[in-house]
């Protein structure tokens, strides 16, 4: 099957957050208590109960004109997925036949290594310490339905389809470069940016941390030989980052 992807076009996005809500609706994610921090953007970051959110970026331009950019933030479904690479629990993170990076909570061991493996700071852990993030609605897409976010988007700011076709479409629409076209073996969430990615809060050259690459190539195969996933994860975590700190974990939830 040809790889599927999302094409996200901030120029089309009206910031209505239909996608943010439709995602919650489909995935039955609870609303959480928030406060207004001097912006309409909320919640302030992805959470285990927020797989997709709109970031509101206000920029003043030279001509005393303001721009207001609306950008969907979510799992990028990397072709070369650091999270899958580092995950020591078989089947906890996996690639769907459509090409998305999905998860199986039953198999997740809560080691949080995928957090280290992700170049985009996406994976979150729910109250049962299980991985939680956008899975591109693989339960829907495998039945021929659109992901909830793409389906609900009023203006086509989130489009779902064959990845090559989406890239072609973006180019036809005048975008010389598509963000995520080649990085990390191609992202599953492509962005049509008219300005440098930095303006949208994206890194120019996303890459998997080298430690993860090291683990994936060297330690992980060893771990499967000698140790259970959980033990291996704990060992690696200690070797790589030192002891787990409670506060770090709390902050995320």
């Amino acid at each position, binding site marked *: 099957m040809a790889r599927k992807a999302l094409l996200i076009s901030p120029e089309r996005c009206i910031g209505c957050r239909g996608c*943010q809500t439709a995602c919650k609706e489909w995935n039955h994610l609870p609303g959480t208590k928030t406060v207004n921090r001097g912006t309409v953007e909320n919640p302030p970051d992805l959470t285990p109960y927020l797989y997709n959110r709109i970031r509101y970026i206000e920029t003043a331009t030279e001509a005393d004109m303001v721009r207001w950019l609306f950008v969907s933030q979510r799992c990028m479904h990397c072709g070369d997925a650091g999270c899958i690479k580092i995950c020591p629990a078989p*089947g906890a993170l996996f690639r769907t036949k459509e090409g998305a990076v999905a998860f199986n909570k039953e198999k997740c061991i809560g080691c949080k290594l995928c957090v280290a493996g992700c170049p985009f700071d996406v994976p979150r852990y729910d109250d049962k310490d299980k991985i939680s993030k956008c899975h591109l609605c693989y*339960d829907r897409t495998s039945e021929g339905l659109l992901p909830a976010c793409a389906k609900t988007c009023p203006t086509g700011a989130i489009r779902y389809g064959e990845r090559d076709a989406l890239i072609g479409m973006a180019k036809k629409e005048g975008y010389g470069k598509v963000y995520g076209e080649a990085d990390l073996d191609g992202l599953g969430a492509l962005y049509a940016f008219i300005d440098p990615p930095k303006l949208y809060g994206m890194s120019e050259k996303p890459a998997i941390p080298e430690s993860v690459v090291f683990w994936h190539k060297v330690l992980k195969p060893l771990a499967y030989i000698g140790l259970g996933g959980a033990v291996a994860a704990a060992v690696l975590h200690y070797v790589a980052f030192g002891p787990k700190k409670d506060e770090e974990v709390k902050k995320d939830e």
Partner: protein
Amino acid sequence: MNVSRRNFLKLSGGSLLLSSLSIDLAPARSYAQTLRIKNAKESSTICPYCSVGCGIIVHASDGKVINAEGDPDHPISEGTLCSKGASLFQIINNPTRVMKPRYRAPGAGEWQEVEWDWALDEIAKRVKQTRDKTFKISTKSKVKGKGPDGKEVEAEKEFVVNRTDGIAHVGSAALDNEECYMLQKLLRSWGLVYIEHQARI
């Protein structure tokens, strides 16, 4: 968010570039979920919020709404919805919805739950009491007419008005057309003229 959560997890330095030999340990297919709306009853509705009139498909199972999403056949919304439309589910399934009539007595500090029959009878009694007390069969109005000399004069005359001045009503643009029609008919039969709703504000 200022500091990326993974910054503190990152390894510093070191160049451990290895060949990109991929070992994907994910199973080819292990979908834990099945499509939960597969056997649900579908019905079509229109979004209750703004006036664009977007189509929504509601999925129900065992008498409960389990999902609501855009109606792809709808010519205006084409399956899409905004944040309010996309959350219709949460209006229906909401623990804070009031599910039983309530009554607040004069001077009371709290609501009490009451039976429908009691509440409706009590309201009917009050409608009648207030109507009977404040009903005006006729009022005086100034009208222009011709005096005996043929000149225009203003005179006060009694006219039938059949109205209840002691009850007012507001609402509602959230009702269905048929209900709006029934309601204006009902209120006018009671003699109300203070009838207003959201269109005025």
